């Protein structure tokens, strides 16, 4: 691949790519997201490749192994373009028929299309399926359009034009200003304005600055970052380079999961391709801006997603958080100013630069702008990854997109934000998706994992489950978190067996209050959020776990067990 040395060359390359491509040419987009691969889509991919080869259709039909389409529930998914015919639950045996009937014959195969389980209405095209119809897919829509392994596919849909615009038409200060004006808020959980964070790092006194992609995504049930990062790694990389330019960083780090081989491959490949094109390294696109990226992996521990812990891990040490009276944006990796943002936050940057902050702020609510990826899971008909504008109500997400609760059960509660989030009862599902509104009702959005619980799920059990997860994940550095969670778990365990004692609920409240104040990092500070919110809304279930016959808690029993 030739190195690109200017903005003009980039545009010429893009034009060249597009002119070689017939816009009406068929292509088959086969989902290779984690869900579909788990369902055996690798065999479907091989079957398509063999079938196309057998019929010598290589010049007429293009196969794109894409990132997650989002509709994981009905996977493996295959989309036939340009008609956008959407097939679900495809098996390798269906492949010859799809190629002869649909790709060549332009006929829709009835048994493979989506049928609404309630109305029986069939939808052949992606845009007609209720799951997709109710979404606003800004970021993830590209997943079906590109082969995640090919940079040229990304170029073909306008990739790296935002980078070129930023480098040649804007000063770093202007880029920063645009992001600030767009009011892009961090998607990792805090919802802190990204622009302000960038500015802090930019203004920090040290010369060497770092930018970091947090793709750790340890939150159970959260799969959005993986969907974007695996499916469209260049969009994240482009955002990162733009951010580095605005901040003045010459070195970036990608911190992500080690246990997804495909994610790992796609990131390494994307970096390699970007380097060859001159989009990374010295003198990017001939602009004089230098920037390099290194990849680091979490090695299976939740707390390393916390910013200061993550930075310790990049240094090759134990991921133990540190107190943040000096923020990581001023003193982070190797004590240098380090700006860390979530995968989704970075992926938002190119479109803000391309389309402008005015367009961006037209989407969403007053204080939360743009769209948000949500990963729907738990007891819901359509689990998967969805993208909606801020302001969409939870009811719309659960019923219009998610298809409601399976097996005729009733919705009981909605849990947001994973092990450190909160649950709200069904009566509050008209709350809009908004950082502040959700925080107010006690279900902070976190990274966007939305868990649906039906009437059979017991809140005490669910909370106990989260605490059990967190006892294993607490790094153990500070006492309130390490010991506090253990004691909460101990109490919750006996309550879930119906052996709770009088005064247990008050004790739970007392411990969680101390943990909230005294813990070092947000893991400990928010570890009792699920407890607090479910106590707020489902106190009766806790009271049911208290046995009248058992004497009140004896303080001495709370001393750690001796072995």
């Amino acid at each position: 691949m030739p190195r690109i040395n200017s903005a003009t060359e980039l545009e010429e390359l893009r034009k060249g790519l597009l002119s070689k491509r017939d816009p009406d040419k068929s292509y088959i987009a086969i989902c290779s997201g984690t869900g579909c691969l788990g369902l055996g889509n690798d065999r479907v991919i091989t079957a398509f490749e063999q079938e196309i080869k057998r019929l010598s259709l290589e010049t007429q039909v293009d196969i794109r192994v894409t990132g997650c389409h989002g509709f994981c529930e009905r996977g493996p998914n295959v989309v036939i373009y340009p008609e956008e015919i959407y097939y679900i639950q495809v098996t390798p045996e269906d492949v010859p028929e799809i190629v002869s009937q649909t790709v060549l014959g332009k006929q829709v195969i009835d048994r493979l299309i989506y049928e609404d389980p309630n109305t029986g209405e069939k939808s052949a095209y992606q845009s007609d399926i209720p799951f997709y119809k109710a979404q606003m897919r800004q970021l993830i829509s590209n997943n079906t359009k590109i082969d995640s392994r090919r940079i040229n596919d990304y170029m073909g849909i306008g990739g790296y034009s935002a980078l070129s615009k930023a480098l040649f038409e804007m000063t770093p200060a202007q880029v920063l200003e645009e992001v600030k004006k767009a009011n892009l808020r961090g998607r990792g959980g805090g919802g802190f304005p990204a622009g302000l964070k960038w500015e802090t790092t930019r203004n920090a006194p040290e010369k060497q600055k770092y930018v970091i992609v947090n793709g750790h995504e340890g939150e159970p049930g959260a799969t959005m970052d993986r969907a974007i990062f695996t499916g469209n790694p260049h969009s994240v990389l482009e955002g990162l380079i733009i951010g580095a330019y605005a901040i003045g960083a010459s070195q970036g780090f990608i911190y992500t999961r080690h246990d997804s081989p495909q994610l790992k491959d796609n990131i390494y490949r994307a970096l390699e391709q970007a380097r060859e094109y001159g989009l990374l390294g010295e003198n990017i696109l001939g602009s004089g801006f230098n920037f390099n990226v290194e990849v680091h992996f979490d090695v299976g521990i939740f707390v390393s997603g916390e910013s200061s812990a993550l930075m310790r891990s990049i240094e090759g040490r134990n991921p133990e958080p540190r107190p943040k009276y000096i923020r990581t944006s001023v003193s982070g990796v190797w004590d240098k100013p380090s700006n860390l943002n979530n995968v989704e936050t970075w992926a938002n940057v190119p479109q803000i630069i391309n389309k402008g902050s005015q367009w961006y702020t037209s989407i969403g609510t007053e204080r939360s702008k743009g769209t948000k990826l949500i990963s729907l899971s738990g007891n819901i008909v359509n689990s998967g990854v969805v993208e909606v504008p801020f302001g969409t109500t939870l009811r719309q997400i659960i019923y219009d997109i998610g298809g409601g609760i399976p097996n005729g059960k009733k919705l009981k509660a909605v849990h947001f934000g994973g092990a450190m989030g909160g649950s709200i009862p069904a009566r509050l599902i008209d709350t809009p998706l908004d950082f502040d509104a959700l925080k107010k009702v006690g279900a902070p959005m976190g990274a966007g994992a939305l868990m649906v619980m039906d009437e059979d799920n017991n809140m005490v059990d669910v909370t106990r489950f989260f605490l059990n997860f967190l006892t294993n994940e607490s790094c153990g550095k500070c006492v309130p978190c390490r010991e506090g969670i253990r004691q909460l778990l101990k109490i919750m365990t006996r309550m879930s067996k119906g052996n709770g004692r009088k005064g247990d609920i008050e004790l739970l409240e007392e411990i969680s209050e101390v943990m909230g104040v005294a813990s070092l990092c947000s893991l400990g500070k928010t570890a009792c959020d699920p407890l607090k919110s479910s106590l707020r809304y489902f106190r009766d279930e806790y009271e049911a776990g208290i046995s009248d016959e058992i004497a009140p808690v004896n303080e001495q029993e709370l001393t750690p067990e001796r072995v």
Partner: protein
Amino acid sequence: MCTGRVDLAFIFRAFSNGKDGVFVGGCWPGECHYITEGNYLALSTMHIGRKLLEMIGLDPERLRLEWISASEGSRYAEVMNDFSKKMKASGPIGKGEGIDPEELNLRLEAVQNLIPYIKLVERERLRVTLKSVEEYNEFFASDEFDQLFQELIGDKFQITRIMALLRKKPCSNKELSEVLGISPSEVSRHLNTAARQGLGRVDESRNLIAAACDENGNTTTSDSSDSAVTAAPDNDTIDQIIHEHQGKPGSLIHVLMEIQSENHWLSKEILDRISEKLDVPLSRVMQIATFYKTFSLSPKGRHEVHVCTGTSCHLRGASHLMESVQDLMGIRPGETDSDAKFSLGNGNCLGCCSLGPEIIVDGKHHGRVTPAMAEEVLKNYA
């Protein structure tokens, strides 16, 4: 000498020397000349001693404690006559119970090795604060004591025996289970506990086990994939991985991660080598290797099985699936079964929530598995 001074060690030394019975006699409770507690201490020692005898298959009656004050000469004679009569009826130690003399020595040796530990445990967990003989007897006959004894001493005893056997010669799990008379899954459970308690020494012995499995030609299962468990780490591969990352700051985690994925576990030799080559203190290497959950300090089975325990899978009933898998394999999360076929882990969420609950074997997902289907899934792996 006060009966309270009769140590467990004395008692078992007597048995080791081939004595058929041990009699301890002394002042009545409440008549102690010293701290008024000596004879209660003796009572507790006697109860534990008898329990230990029972554990190793000997008649607990071989140890007897009687209250006889200095003025009770005739009672002393009566008791002694009775004791020797009973001992004669029981027969010589070991023979009476039908235990092979060599085996008996092994068991007694294992108990003797345990005594310092038992004394510690006794002080921490089994010390009775009661003040009457009846209460003592009641406590030592209770289920609570049985459970504590099993947890604290019973398991430890089996581990000590396993270690003693392994130090003599390499054994397969099967042999161990036959010699010890416990089930293979119990053996593997003890080995895992041992691995958690004292790494270096036990790793060594686990190697012996793995190696022996191989030699014995575990014919039904032995194939090339065995190498994950038995093969000695290939130094060249390891050196190459280290070399690739050398000189880069923060390379330690990368190196450990790649070796883990190559070798499936990190032996002491590997950790030493990394420490030496990267010039990082071993304590730092150990700190990282023990902190991150992905790193394993004991060998893994040929197949790594994970049951996703993420929230979504939990809501869909993963805990029942986990129970069923544990029953099928006879091991708990974090353990490896006796013939090194499966290692079980409870994987955190891997992002296939729509497939939940799921079992992941060697990276392959099996989605929407009900507890009843678990056997079907695992059957496909040899």
